[in-house]
C-alpha cells in the first residue's frame, strides 16, 4: 500500500552508494529514547477499499434536498468546463510560481484573475487570493491599522456573524479595539457588508464620505454574484473590498476550500497582504508575468511582513476566473437577475410570515415565523427541504427567525411547493 516506486534492489544500491548498511543508520541523529515503537494507526487498505469506505460515508450526507440554505455560502450552478480545466494537473500539481519562466500558465491566470476581480468590484488592485471571506475581513482590518496607524475597528451588524467571530479570534492578542456600529470617529476602518447578512441591500456611498472625512477607511464585504447587478464597492468609495469568493464556481464542499478576495485602491497597494502578479517582459521584449512587490511578504520581511500568509487559494482563484470567463459579462448579470427575481417570487408567497428586512433584498431575506424556526426547519427536512438558516443558531436573530436564500437553481414549481409546505408546518 504505497506510492513509493523503489524496489528492494533500488534500496540496496542506494544504501551502498550512501555507504550505510541500513536505512536505520540514517536516523542515528534521533536519540534512541525518542524513537517511536508503536502507534495506533491501522494497516493500509487498497484503493478499492478506500473508495468503498469513503463512498459509504459520502452518502450519509444530504445533498439531494431542495435547498434554501445560504447564510453567506450559496448553491450556484457551476459549468462542467470549470472542473475539467482546473482539474488539469499542470495546474493543480504545480507549486507557487517562484520560477516564473516555467510558471507562466499560473502567473498569467492570476493576472487575469486579478483583472476580473478589479472589473467586478471597480477596484484598482487585488491580490492573488486569501483563504476565505472571514480571513479576508481580518486581513483588511489589519491593513487599515497599518494605513491609518489607529487601532479602533468598527464592525457593522450587517457583517456575517461568523466573520465577526473570526475577526475577534484572529485579533485576540493584538492591540485592537473592536466596536459595533458605523461611527468612523477615531477609527481605522468601518466594516460593512452588502447585501447584509440578513440580505438587505444598501448603498454605503454616504458612509464612505463620512469615513474619509474622519480619516477612516471604508471596508465593504460583498457577495460576488450580487455584483452582476448591485452597485460596486468601488463606486461606493470603498478603500478595501473583501469577499467570500465561493459563489464564483466553487462547490459548497462543507466549508472549503473557498476563496478570500481582497481588493484595494492604488494608494494602499503596498500595505496589502498576499501575493500579487505583475506584467513585465524578458530581454527579447516578450510579455511575461512575475510575482511582484514581494518585499511586503513573510519570506522576505519575516516578522515585519504585512501578513504571515504563504500558501493561498490559487487554484480556487483559477476556478473563479474560469467560471467568470464561461459566464461572461451578460451571463453573470443573468444569474444575478434570476437569483433576485426568484427570491422576490418566493418572498411574495410567504405572506404568513413577517419580513424582517428594512429595505430591498437581493437573493436572501429573513422572516419571522409564527413558530420556532429550528423546529420548523427540522420538520421540513423529512419532506426533502433545507428550509434555510434559523438565525438563532448563529446568534443573528430570535427563536422564530429564519434566513431564506434562493439561487438560479430553484424553479418556480419547487418554490410553490416549498411555500405551501412551510406554511403548513409553520402555521399549523
Amino acid at each position, binding site marked *: 500500500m504505497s506510492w513509493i516506486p523503489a524496489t528492494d534492489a533500488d534500496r540496496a544500491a542506494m544504501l551502498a552508494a550512501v555507504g550505510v548498511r541500513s536505512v536505520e543508520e540514517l536516523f542515528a541523529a534521533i536519540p534512541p529514547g525518542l524513537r517511536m515503537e508503536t502507534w495506533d494507526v491501522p494497516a493500509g487498505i487498497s484503493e478499492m477499499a478506500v473508495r468503498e469506505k469513503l463512498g459509504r460515508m459520502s452518502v450519509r450526507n444530504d445533498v439531494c434536498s431542495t435547498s434554501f440554505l445560504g447564510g453567506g455560502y450559496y448553491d450556484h450552478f457551476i459549468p462542467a468546463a470549470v472542473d475539467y480545466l482546473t482539474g488539469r494537473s499542470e495546474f493543480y500539481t504545480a507549486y507557487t510560481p517562484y520560477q516564473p519562466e516555467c510558471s507562466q500558465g499560473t502567473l498569467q491566470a492570476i493576472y487575469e484573475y486579478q483583472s476580473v476581480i478589479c472589473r467586478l468590484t471597480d477596484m484598482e488592485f487585488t491580490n492573488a487570493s486569501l483563504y476565505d471571506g472571514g480571513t479576508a475581513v481580518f486581513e483588511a482590518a489589519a491593513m487599515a491599522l497599518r494605513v491609518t496607524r489607529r487601532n479602533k475597528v468598527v464592525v457593522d451588524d450587517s457583517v456575517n456573524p461568523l466573520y465577526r467571530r*473570526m475577526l475577534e479570534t484572529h485579533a485576540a492578542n493584538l492591540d485592537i479595539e473592536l466596536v459595533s456600529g458605523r461611527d468612523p470617529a477615531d477609527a481605522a476602518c468601518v466594516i460593512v457588508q452588502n447585501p447584509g447578512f440578513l440580505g438587505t441591500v444598501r448603498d454605503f456611498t454616504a458612509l464612505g464620505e463620512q469615513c474619509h472625512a474622519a480619516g477612516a477607511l471604508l471596508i465593504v464585504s460583498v457577495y460576488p454574484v450580487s455584483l452582476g447587478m448591485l452597485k460596486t464597492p468601488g463606486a461606493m468609495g470603498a478603500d478595501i473590498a473583501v469577499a467570500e469568493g465561493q459563489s464564483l464556481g466553487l462547490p459548497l464542499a462543507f466549508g472549503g476550500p473557498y476563496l478570500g478576495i481582497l481588493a484595494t485602491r492604488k494608494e494602499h497597494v503596498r500595505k496589502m497582504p498576499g501575493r500579487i502578479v505583475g506584467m513585465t517582459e524578458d530581454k527579447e521584449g516578450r510579455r511575461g508575468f512575475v510575482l511582484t512587490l514581494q518585499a511586503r511578504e513573510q519570506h522576505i520581511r519575516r516578522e515585519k511582513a504585512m501578513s504571515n500568509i504563504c500558501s493561498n487559494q490559487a487554484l480556487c482563484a483559477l476556478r473563479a476566473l474560469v467560471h467568470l470567463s464561461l459566464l461572461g459579462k451578460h451571463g453573470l448579470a443573468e444569474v444575478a437577475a434570476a437569483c433576485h427575481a426568484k427570491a422576490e417570487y418566493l418572498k411574495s408567497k410567504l405572506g404568513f410570515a413577517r419580513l424582517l428586512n428594512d429595505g430591498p433584498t437581493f437573493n436572501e431575506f429573513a422572516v419571522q415565523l409564527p413558530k420556532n424556526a429550528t423546529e420548523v426547519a427540522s420538520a421540513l427536512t423529512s419532506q426533502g427541504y433545507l428550509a434555510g438558516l434559523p438565525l438563532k443558531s448563529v446568534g443573528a436573530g430570535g427563536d422564530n427567525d429564519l434566513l431564506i436564500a434562493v439561487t438560479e437553481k430553484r424553479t418556480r414549481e419547487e418554490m410553490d411547493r416549498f411555500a405551501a409546505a412551510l406554511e403548513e408546518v409553520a402555521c399549523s
Partner: protein
Amino acid sequence: MQLIFEKCRQRRAITFDAIDVPEAVLPAELCRASLAELPELSEIDVVRHFTHLSQRNVGVDCHFYPLGSCTMKYNPKLAEAVAAYPGFSWLHPHLASLPAYHAKCQGALEVVYELERLLAEIAGMKAACIKPMAGAHGELTGVLLIAAYHRDKGHAHKDTILVPDSAHGTNPASAAIAGYKVVEVPSNSDGLTDLDKLRAAMNDNVAGIMLTCPNTHGLFETNIAEIARMAHEVDALLYYDGANLNAIVGQCRPGDLGFDVMHYNLHKTFGTPHGMGGPGSGPVGVSERLLPYLPGPRVVKRDGHFSLETPEKSIGRMTAFFGNFLIALRAYAYILHLGDAGLRDVGRMAVLNANYVLARLKDAYKPAFPATVMHECLFTASPQAEKGVHAIDIAKALIDRGYHAPTIYFPLTVKECLMIEPTETESKETLDAFCDAMIEIARLVDEDPESLRAAPRSTPVGRLDEVKAAKELNCARLSPHLA
C-alpha cells in the same frame, strides 16, 4: 500568448433557461452603472485558452520537482477521486450550524473526527484540529493557543517568542501577528540551534519557541530533549513547525519529542496537491495542556452519533467551518491507503532518497553541512559563484533540462543555497537522471558558463525583468472606465 480579454468576440459560452418567475427590479441607485467587463468567448475558446495556459506550467505530474522545504511528492489520484464525491463536494457547511441538521452531515462529521484522531496519533499529540487553512494559518492558530494558555495562567509578562535564524519566514510573521516580540536564535556551525545562545535568550518572558525538526538545514535537532527541558523550565511552550514532518513520519513523533503544539502541512506530508500555491491545509495538534483552548466548534462522538461542541476555554473561530475540508478529505484517503506500514516507509524512503542525492552530488557541489541529512540536502554554490555562476543560474539551467528548480537562496543562513528535497515518491532512475544533469551543469561552470547564465531558453519566456514589474505595477487589465 494573448490575454483572455484580448480574445473576446462577444460570444456566449453558457446560456440559461428563461427565468420562470416575473422579472424584478431594484432601485437604480442600488445597482451598478454598467455591467462588469468580463470576457465573452465561446466555450471552446475558453477551453483552449486555459488548456494552453496549463501547457505553460510545470506540475509534479509532468516533471521532477526537487523543491526543498516544499515536499512536492506525487499527489495520488485516489484522493482526487474521493474529493469529487458529490456527497462531500456539494454539502452545505451550515448543516453543521444547528443540531437539527446534524443528521444530514454525519458522513462528513465522521471524516473530520476520524482524521483528527489519526493526525493526533501520527504526531503523538493529544488531539488535532483540521480547521487552519494553510501552514501559516496553523502557525497563527498555534501561537494564539500558546497566548491563551499564558493568559489563563496569568503570565502577562510573557511577551516573546524565540525563532531560530533558519526558520521559515512564516514563523516570525505568525508570532508577530499574534502580538509577540520575536527574538532570533542563531544556528551553530553544525547547522543546529546554538544551545548556548538559546540558553542566553531563554528567560521568564519567553512564551514559546518555534522549531522546525528536522530543521531547514535538513538536520535533526539532536539536542531536542535539552531544548524542551530548557523551555519547560520557564513554562515556555514548544511549537513544532510540521513543514518537515515527512522526514520523521513513522520514525519519531513531535509529541514524544516534547512539543506542546504543532501544525501539519497536509499538502506536504500527506500528499495533497499544492494547487499553484494553494489551497493547502494546516491542521494543528496539541498536547493535553492546550486541549481546552482549541478552536471551536469541534466534532465529538457520543453513542455513535457525531455532533459539535466548543471547548470551554476555546480561542474562538479560526475558520467559519472546517477549513479546507476537501483537502483534509484527500489526506484522510492518503492515510487510509498507506496505513501503518506505508506511512513508516514514507519517512524511510524520503531520507534514503535525500542521502542518495547527497552522495551522488557531493563531489560536484559543496554540501552546506557535513552531517548525514534527513529528507533534504543543502549545497552552497559559493564555489561556483566565485566563477560567475550563481545558484539562480544553476536553477534556470535545470529548467532547460526538464526539472523544476530546487529551492534557492533559502534558508538565509546558507550562502548561494541550493536546497534539494527529492521525496519518497521518486524512483532511482529519476534521481540518477537529475543528478547527471546537476553534474553536467557543474562541468559547464568551467567549460561554458555563459550558457548557464543565458538559461532558460526552452521556456515560453526567458528571465523576466522584475524591476520593471515592481516599477510599473501593471497588476490588472482594468475596466476601460478605470484604466
